[in-house]
């Protein structure tokens, strides 16, 4: 029996009991739609996270060995003094240069920032960077995500200009002067400076009025000037006077409350003074994440051959941002659980449908066998029906999922992930996610075939005389 006749017969058998076939298809459509939508949602989250991390820290970072694990508290001990030579070597390397979007140095440091006009101070985690290069990295968007990254306005600003997180701005009482939207000033009970309150409380009214008058007469620049206290490489305290030119929402509250970005030269001046400046990392951003293995291999070889005496190590963005891997695992396990649950439901639904079909068509099976169809032909017929069910159900499920995904993507729905300080658009990436589409459809058809296998086998094993007697 040729394939066309087999398919035609299988299709007609499916249409024989339309209501049952429709109910079976519906189970598949709902199942596949759920899998595709959740898979698309998961993909969007992971691509979004990856985009954010790659924009901030690049795909790969060169660090002095041990800095990532132990150097957070003492960046100066892990400085890379040869960073200019290393970056030059990367940019001139024939293999790496075409892969690399940007190679830029950065220096992380901790300190205390104080707004002494308001009498407040807070711990900060600062990063010194090359603004133009960092801004080019922020433009990376290989997955066409809705990007929340905005360029740092440090480029072209003065050497003492800094950008801080909106949470830090709130704590330093800079919301008003920086015109930070949705920034609730720190409350007197919680965050208001004790010194200021004490002073204001004890001062006579005429002094307070004079003070207020003097404050009003101060030039505007003074209101956003802060002091930054940090420890130099030698252990001595060093202070820099900085101008906060903008506060930006960093997304994650814990970062937002501590973040400060400044020019690399300013950060180096704070830490190294007149000494040899160094950096704590060189970030490499590639055109595509898929280029990481090649870039990594070449970079390792380059560092080994050109800088054999530097104890350097290469870290990828997954290692630098463990949250990415943790989220991937968490979402992956949820996806697997949902897919398994739906797979089992579909398995039993189709198995039940096929078993009923075998029972109803027992006499027909006996007839086909009597007139010469082999057992394998019977098996093939039922498997073909399952394949058609799987294919039709998958196609319908795909169309349904794409339709719902379109609706969600155009709904403007938002949500605030745990630990984040602003809401993200809820988006699902179904159509653009080929592995998800192929995997889900192949999986669904596979489940359909698996569920039909046992009934088909049972049909094929029927004895002809028993089957003919079934009527």
């Amino acid at each position, binding site marked *: 029996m040729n394939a066309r006749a087999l398919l035609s017969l299988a299709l007609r058998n499916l*249409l024989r009991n339309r209501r049952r076939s429709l109910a079976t298809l519906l189970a598949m459509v709902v199942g596949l739609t759920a899998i595709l939508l959740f898979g698309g949602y998961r993909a969007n989250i992971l691509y979004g996270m990856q985009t954010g991390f790659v924009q901030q820290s690049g795909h790969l970072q060169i660090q002095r060995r041990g800095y990532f694990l132990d150097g957070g508290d003492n960046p100066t001990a892990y400085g890379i003094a040869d960073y200019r030579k290393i970056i030059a070597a990367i940019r001139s390397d024939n293999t790496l240069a075409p892969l690399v979007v940007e190679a830029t140095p950065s220096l992380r440091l901790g300190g205390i920032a104080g707004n002494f006009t308001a009498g407040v101070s807070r711990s900060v985690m600062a990063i010194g960077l090359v603004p133009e290069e960092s801004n080019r990295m922020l433009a990376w968007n290989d997955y066409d995500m809705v990007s929340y990254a905005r360029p740092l306005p440090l480029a072209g600003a003065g050497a003492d200009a800094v950008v801080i997180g909106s949470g830090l701005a709130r704590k330093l009482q800079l919301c008003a002067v920086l015109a930070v939207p949705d920034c609730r000033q720190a409350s007197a009970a919680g965050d208001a400076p004790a010194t200021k309150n004490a002073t204001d409380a004890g001062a006579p009214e005429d002094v307070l009025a004079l003070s207020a008058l003097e404050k009003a007469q101060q030039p505007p620049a003074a209101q956003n000037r802060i002091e930054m206290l940090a420890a130099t490489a030698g252990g001595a305290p060093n202070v820099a006077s900085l101008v906060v030119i903008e506060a930006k929402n960093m997304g994650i509250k814990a970062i937002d409350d501590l973040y400060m970005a400044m020019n690399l030269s300013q950060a180096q001046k704070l830490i190294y003074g007149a000494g040899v400046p160094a950096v704590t990392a060189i970030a490499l951003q590639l055109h595509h994440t898929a280029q990481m293995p090649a870039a990594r291999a070449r970079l390792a070889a380059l560092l080994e051959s050109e800088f054999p005496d530097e104890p350097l190590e290469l870290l990828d963005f997954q290692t630098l941002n463990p949250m990415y891997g943790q989220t991937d695992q968490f979402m992956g396990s949820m996806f697997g659980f949902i897919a398994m649950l739906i797979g089992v439901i579909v398995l039993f639904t189709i198995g039940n449908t096929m078993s009923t079909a075998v029972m109803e068509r027992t006499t027909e099976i006996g007839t086909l066998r009597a007139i010469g169809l082999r057992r394998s032909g019977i098996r093939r017929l039922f498997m073909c029906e399952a394949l058609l069910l799987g294919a039709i159900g998958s196609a319908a499920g795909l169309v349904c999922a794409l339709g719902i995904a379109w609706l969600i993507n155009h709904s403007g729905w938002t949500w605030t992930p745990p630990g984040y300080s602003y809401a993200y658009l809820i988006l699902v990436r179904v159509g653009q996610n080929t592995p998800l589409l192929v995997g889900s459809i192949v999986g669904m058809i596979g489940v359909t075939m698996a569920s039909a296998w046992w009934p088909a086998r049972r049909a094929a094993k029927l004895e002809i005389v028993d089957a003919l007697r079934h009527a």
Partner: protein
Amino acid sequence: MQPVSLRNVSKVYHLDAVEVAALNAVSLDIEAGRFTVISGPSGSGKTTLLNLIGCIDRPDRGEVVVAGQAVQAMTDDALSDFRARHIGFVFQNFNLLPVLSAYENIEYPLLLGKVAPAERRRRVRDLLDAVGLAERGDSRPGQLSGGQRQRVAIARALVHAPALVLADEPTANLDRQTGASIIALMHTLQQERGVSIVVSSHDPHVQAAADASVFIRDGLIVASKEEAAA
């Protein structure tokens, strides 16, 4: 060549703890080109005998030779292929595939035999004409009367030009007049095509049409009669 030769064939069914001997050392030869009727009371073993001749069941003992070939040693696939080439079946309940048209039902054995499309068309048209359903080829079984369905079944049984056609109570679900016309049609086609037809029936009209009769009771052939060849 004799289309069917059975030697000392026995078949026992096991119903729970009880053994029922459906056939007991039966020997039978069916001559070529005859319309043979097997008759006997219910439970006598007619259907079992027909099943063994039709190679859809295997004997416990004895030898079954159909179309010159001993069939009991054949594998299941070989038996399927053998039936597809040499045997046609007509069932009491017609057993047409409800999702196929009359034309497609008749064509089905030719698809199994991988007959070329043009040849399939020619043979199906020829048989639709022969059974008087040339205009009903597109009708589904559900759109046909009982007599018409049985005509389609007869055409299906003959389309691949088998050596032997077996019919199990082909008139049992038909009224007397329609049954008579079906038997007349079978008889005519048997004579035109030189095929051997074996019918199991206890319908006296069918028995009257027989070239040869076999009477079976309690799993034993108790009488056989050879009429003058038509």
